Structures are given as structure tokens and as C-alpha cells.
């Protein structure tokens, strides 16, 4: 059992995570307090959901640059619609439902581009991103939303526990983290233990081989994009509900795509084995958020943040490569590629 874990693609990432946490913890023990962990959970909740979206897309061997925009679009237009109609008492389920519906429609648009029109997903979804950004600003609204539905505010202030730093500042564990965790569990089980999940991996491994195995590749991609649409819809609402002082803005998630992609790249391992990517992605996002959250607490100015994050990503990739049989060997292989 232990050997199996050691051999898995995510083990190197796990080691990196432990080492990073240990180093940060030694420099400033405050980082390992309950309050700090609650704050980490809060910052992870939304990026972790969006990382799941890009994870599914990358499992089927594509890339999506529009998932953050779609999340923002789905949630913002839902909020906008509800505020305009002054429907501030609608249930949270309806809010989610509307946002999910919009997210699904938009992701299925991506499916049409990628599967039906056979466009390159990276380029096509960049187009989607730009197109949606324009659409929302031109046709929906371009301003902040000041008054969210009550149920959304309630979700944002639903706390599971509270703790305070030594300085006395309070930190709460948001209830929305439950959504995130449930989604991870559900997708982990789907990917590792269901026929459909294996078909997702199969399509990503080799779409032609999948076709020959009798897999309906278009259908698998359709459901993949559909699930991603659901994730984007949920992610958008959770993002807006946890926004606190930052009010919903049409395009406020755009620009965070690379965090999700980095988490998945770290999480799937350099060998891209069809195994444990959900665990890896969660580890990846927690690691990245942990660093950006706590850098300032070990005395490193925030403008070094991207620098350190980038360095950690390199470290993760190199460690995984070493696991594969030595970095030098890999480099040599690349030079003498036959």
C-alpha cells in the first residue's frame, strides 16, 4: 500500500507540499494555527472549484481558456437578472440553477467549437473568452451589482467555525467549502471508479484509440463540457457569495485561468497517468494558495508572489521528472530524441 502511494504521480507533489508547509511553519508558526487554516480554506474554495473545471477539460486532452469567464458570466448575469427584477428573496437553489444553466449552455458552445467544428481548443476558447467578455459588457451590463439576493449573502456568511489569530483578528471557516469538497469527492469517484470516468481518461489518452474501442468520443466530450458548465456555474455563484467587500463585476474572475491550469499540471504528474488527478489538483491548488496566502506572513513582500509561485511550479515539475528516472536522463533523452 505504502509502495503504491510512493509510486503514484502525486507523491512528489505531496512531498513538495509538506516541505513548503514545514518551511513556512518554522519561519512563522502562526501560519499553522487554526485561524490561518480557515483563511486558507476560504481562499481555496473558489480557485479549487475552477481548477476542477479545467481539470476535466485537460483529462479529455483539451485546453480551455474560457472557464473563468464562463463562471463569471453565468453568475453575474444571474445576479444582474435577479436584481433588475428585484427578486431579492429567491431561494439559493434557484440562483444556482440559473447560473448552472447559463454555464452549461456556454460550455456546450465550446463543445460545438471543439468537437463539431474541430477547432483547436486552446485558440477556440480564447475566442470564447473574448467573445463573452464583449457580450457581457455590451449586452448585459458593465457595472457593479450593489445588492445581491439575500440568499446569496446568507451563503457567503454561513460559517462552520471561527478561530482568531494571536492578534485577535477573527477568521471563519466558510460553509461553501463543503460544496468544493463534495465536488472533489464526486469527481474523484467518477474519474477513478466509473466507466464514464475511465472513458474521459481514454479520450484524453488517445481519441482515435478511444473511437476504435467503441467509445462515442463526441458524446464523452459532450458530457465532459456539460459537467464543466455545471462546475463553472456553481463556482461563479460561490465566488460572488464569498466576495465580501468585492462586489460582483462582469469579468472579475478572468485572469485566474493559469492558477487552475498550473494546479492541474502539477496534479496530474509529468507522466500524465490516468490516475488520481483530482487528488493532485486539490493538492496543487492548496499549495499554490498556501504560498500566495502566507508569503507576506514570512516577511516576503507580495510583489514576489508570482515569482515564488512560478519557482514552486518549476520545482514541482522537476521533482516529478526526477521520479521518472532522473532529470539528467530525461534531458539526455530529449537531446537524442529518436
Amino acid at each position, binding site marked *: 500500500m505504502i509502495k503504491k502511494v510512493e509510486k503514484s504521480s502525486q507523491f512528489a507533489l505531496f512531498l513538495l507540499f509538506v516541505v513548503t508547509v514545514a518551511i513556512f511553519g518554522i519561519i512563522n508558526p502562526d501560519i499553522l494555527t487554526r485561524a490561518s487554516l480557515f483563511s486558507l480554506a476560504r481562499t481555496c474554495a473558489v480557485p479549487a472549484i475552477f481548477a476542477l473545471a479545467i481539470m476535466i477539460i485537460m483529462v479529455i486532452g483539451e485546453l480551455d481558456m474560457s472557464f473563468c469567464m464562463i463562471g463569471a458570466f453565468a453568475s453575474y448575469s444571474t445576479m444582474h437578472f435577479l436584481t433588475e427584477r428585484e427578486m431579492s428573496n429567491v431561494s439559493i437553489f434557484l440562483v444556482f440553477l440559473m447560473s448552472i444553466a447559463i454555464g452549461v449552455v456556454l460550455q456546450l458552445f465550446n463543445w460545438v467549437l471543439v468537437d463539431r467544428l474541430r477547432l483547436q481548443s486552446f485558440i477556440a476558447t480564447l475566442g470564447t473568452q473574448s467573445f463573452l467578455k464583449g457580450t457581457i459588457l455590451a449586452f448585459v451590463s458593465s457595472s457593479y451589482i450593489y445588492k445581491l439576493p439575500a440568499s446569496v449573502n446568507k451563503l457567503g456568511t454561513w460559517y462552520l467555525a471561527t478561530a482568531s489569530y494571536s492578534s485577535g483578528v477573527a477568521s471563519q471557516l466558510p460553509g461553501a467549502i463543503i460544496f468544493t469538497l463534495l465536488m472533489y469527492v464526486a469527481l474523484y469517484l467518477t474519474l477513478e*471508479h*466509473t*466507466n*464514464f*470516468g*475511465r*472513458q474521459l*481518461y*481514454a479520450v*484524453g*489518452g*488517445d481519441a*482515435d*484509440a*478511444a*473511437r*476504435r*474501442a*467503441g*467509445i462515442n468520443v463526441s458524446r464523452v466530450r459532450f458530457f465532459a463540457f456539460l459537467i464543466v458548465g455545471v462546475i463553472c456555474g456553481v463556482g461563479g455563484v460561490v465566488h460572488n457569495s464569498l466576495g465580501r467587500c468585492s462586489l460582483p463585476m462582469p469579468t472579475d474572475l478572468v485572469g485566474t485561468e493559469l492558477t487552475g491550469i498550473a494546479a492541474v499540471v502539477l496534479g496530474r504528474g509529468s*507522466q*500524465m*497517468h*490516468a490516475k488520481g488527478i483530482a487528488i493532485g489538483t486539490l493538492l496543487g491548488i492548496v499549495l499554490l494558495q498556501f504560498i500566495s496566502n502566507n508569503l507576506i506572513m514570512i516577511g516576503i513582500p507580495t510583489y514576489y508572489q508570482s515569482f515564488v509561485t512560478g519557482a514552486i511550479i518549476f520545482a514541482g515539475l522537476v521533482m516529478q521528472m526526477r521520479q521518472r528516472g532522473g532529470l539528467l536522463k530525461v534531458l539526455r533523452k530529449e537531446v*537524442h530524441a529518436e
Partner: protein
Amino acid sequence: MKNIVTIKDMYKSFYGAMALNGMNFTVNEGEVRCLIGENGCGKSTMIKVISGFHGFDSGELQINGKTYRKITPAESIAEGIQVIYQDFALFPNMTIAENIMMYSTVAGKKAHINWKEVRQRAVDTLHKIKFEIDPDIYIADLNVAQKQMVAICRAIVQNAKLLIMDEPTTALTTKEVERLFSIVRQLKSEGVSVLFVSHKLDEVIEICDSYTVMRNGEDVYCSNKGDSKLTKEEMVFYMTGKKFDSQTYHYEQTDAQPVLELKELTMEPTFRNISLKLHQGEILGITGLLGCGRSELAEALFGLRIATGGQIEINGKDVGIFKNVDDALRCGIAYVPEDRLTEGLHLAQSIADNSISRIVRNYANCFGVLRIKALRSKQTEGLNSMSVAGMVPQNPANSLSGGNQQKIVLIKWLASNPDILILNCPTVGVDVGAKNDIHRIVRDLARDKGVGVIIISNDMYEIMQTCNRVLLMKNGMIDQEIQTSEATMDALEELAAAD
């Protein structure tokens, strides 16, 4: 005897081009049938009709006694037909066990995956063909022969009644081929039929009970189990409709300066102390088993690998060791690589542009602007120098079949008028007709233009067809030198295989 697949008078065309033109074909229970034919003769189309990837225009398709007007891939699999494609269609990101069971998993339609059962059934199947390997290894970490074994396991786990193998031996070593054949025989004894699609006539003769020869979309020869076997020459005749005479290349030894001389060329650890002389107009073969260092030697002679010791002399002048490809080009060396798909051609570019890619830099003026008119005429000149079937100069290079692609690679190199031509396995995966064309071109080059040619190959037919002299390599050293006029193909093969 029961027929598994029967095809009668089948027609199928793609955009007006006839792929199947009145094809008749049967496979009986428990036989190893071979399907041979040149590239583009419709073999793959027929396989794809049987496996459900193509429909057909008219004719009859019967599988296990049931007549199909159109068969889907899933139905074909359900009828017990399994195809092992050249690329194996395995999932590199999954383990051996999961790959073996993937088809059954998909077909089983059960939502939940029972990993214990998947692993157990995979282990049982691996056991059945006596393939000892850890089922938890990922496909990406396997070599070609191992992948093939996995593909075979995947086919038999589904109770295949007919196993179709498309060019299964192309990338295997002699030992691996023997192993494959013993598995094929074992399957046959268990009542599984095998359809063996291959270019390699020796292998076909060794393994098959019966043959169907295809030409231009129809069957031109069909034998049944127990019929007398065809000779190689007869097979070639049926495949191409032409008779080829086999003779060795005649070369008069002269005392002139060798164009290329190697002195103790060494590249640890793959080859060492290679000394040889190549004269103008001579065709020298270098052969040996896979891994004997022949390919590496070829690459060292073109600066793709850097030798660690020894020296190279061109026309009597010491040029040291090639450090890069430019060094070799300056010495007038041309190199036709083993893998034309990734190393020989710009597949997505037009045939015409490929034909001048070696010399295009000579056609630029001092500002780097190309003299288009001169280039165009050079393109036409090059492309007219060989007969390349079905060629449209403006089409991309990947529109051509393997043999014709190889001709374009030759045209590209000959445009620079090289003094020395090195061919590394020039006809792997090339059909017989094109193969003979290429051999003729090489012989003409040496005889008429005085080019010194080195052919690296493990195809003894090729060596006998083209070379006047052959060097046998073993474990990185030259084992012996043989004059082809004094040898036979069988003798060469025996020498190469002997330890």
C-alpha cells in the same frame, strides 16, 4: 469448414476513386490467412469494412453466417472480430491491465468499475500467452513488442474469433517475430482465425496456411489451406502484375581513391573500430540485428550523433569527426533517414516544396529573397526524374503512400548532387513495387552518376538486390565482409542471426 467472414463481389469507392473493385474474400475457422498486396491496393479499406469503420457500395458481407448491409464497429466486435492496428490503439496513460480490459469495460456498459476483477482477468490473459510482465506498468513505458503483446491480450480477452493483424512485424526484432508467431500458432490451435496483413513475404510464407493476394481493389489470387504454397517470385508477380528479375549489383573494383574512408571510427558504447572504404559507384550494404550499432553508425556518418574516436576521410582528405549535420553536408553526404515521417519530410508541406527543401538556400539572393522561377523549374525537374504514382505537386507530402514518400525524400537529396548517399532502412513499410523502383533508382545512381552508396538494412532481399558488397555488424563491430555475388539470401540471413 465454417466461414467466419465472407465477402462477395464488393465495391467501395471514395470520392470517385475505386478502393474495392469486385473483391472476393473468405476466412475460415482456425486458419491463418494472409492478405498481401501493394500499398493502396485496398487492403486497409477491406479491413475497415470488416471492422465496421467503412460502409460499402455494393456486394455482400457475411460474418458468422449472418449477412450485413452495414456493420458498426460495436457489432463487429460483438461478432468476435478484433483488429490489431499498426499503432495498436492503446491508451498510453493507462496500465497494461486497464488497456487489456478497456474494450470489455466499454462494451459491458456497467457504470461501476471493479478494479479487482479488471486486474485478475488481465493477469489471466497475460498468463494465457505466457507474457510475464507487471500488469500495473503504464503503456507509455513499454517498447513496441510489449505493446503488441498487450494489444493481442486485449483482443483475446474478448473471445476473438478472428484476429486481424495489420503489418504486425514491422517494428519487431527477429526474436520478437518468432515469439509472435508462436502465439499466432497457439491461437490457431485454440480455434481462433488470424488474418495476417504483411509486406514481408518470407514471414508470410512461414506463418500462413492460405493467401489472398490483392491488386487494385480485387482478389487476383486465392489459395486455401492445404494448397501448395506460392514462391516469393510468384507472389510478387501477383501483387504487381510484373516480373522482377533478381540480380546483384555488379561493380568493377578499381584502384581509385575511395570517396569515403573510415578509420577506426568509434562511438562508445554503440560501435567501435569501424574501418571501411567506399569507392565511387559502389553500393555497400551494412547489416546486422537490431541493436548491433548499424543505425547509430549511419547517424554518426551524417553528424546526427558524434563519434567519440577515429577519423573520417573524404576523397583522401582527413575531415576528423562530424560534429553536426552541416559538417556532413559540406562533404557532399546525403542521408535518407529510417523514419521518413518524422525525419525525412515536412509532411504538411507540398510535395513540390519538399522536393527542393535541401537546396532552397542556394536559390536565395543576398537579401534572402528566393528566385521563384528558377526554383519552380528545379521542382519540375526533380519531380519528373522519377515516376511517382498519384502525385499532385501541390498536395501535401502526407497525401502519398510510404513508397512514394520515400521517392520524394530521394528526389530532395539528389537535387544537391551528393557524392555519397547513405540510406538507413530505405524501404521499411514500402510495398514491393515501390521497393523495386527505389532499388533500381539507387543502382542507376551508383552506376551512371558514380555516387558512392551505403545502404543500412536488415532486409536481406534489399541487400541482395542492390549491394555489391555487404558488411555484417555484430555488437558494434564489423564481423565480416561478404561479396553479394558469392552469397545467397539464406546464407546471409543465417550469418546475421548466428551469435
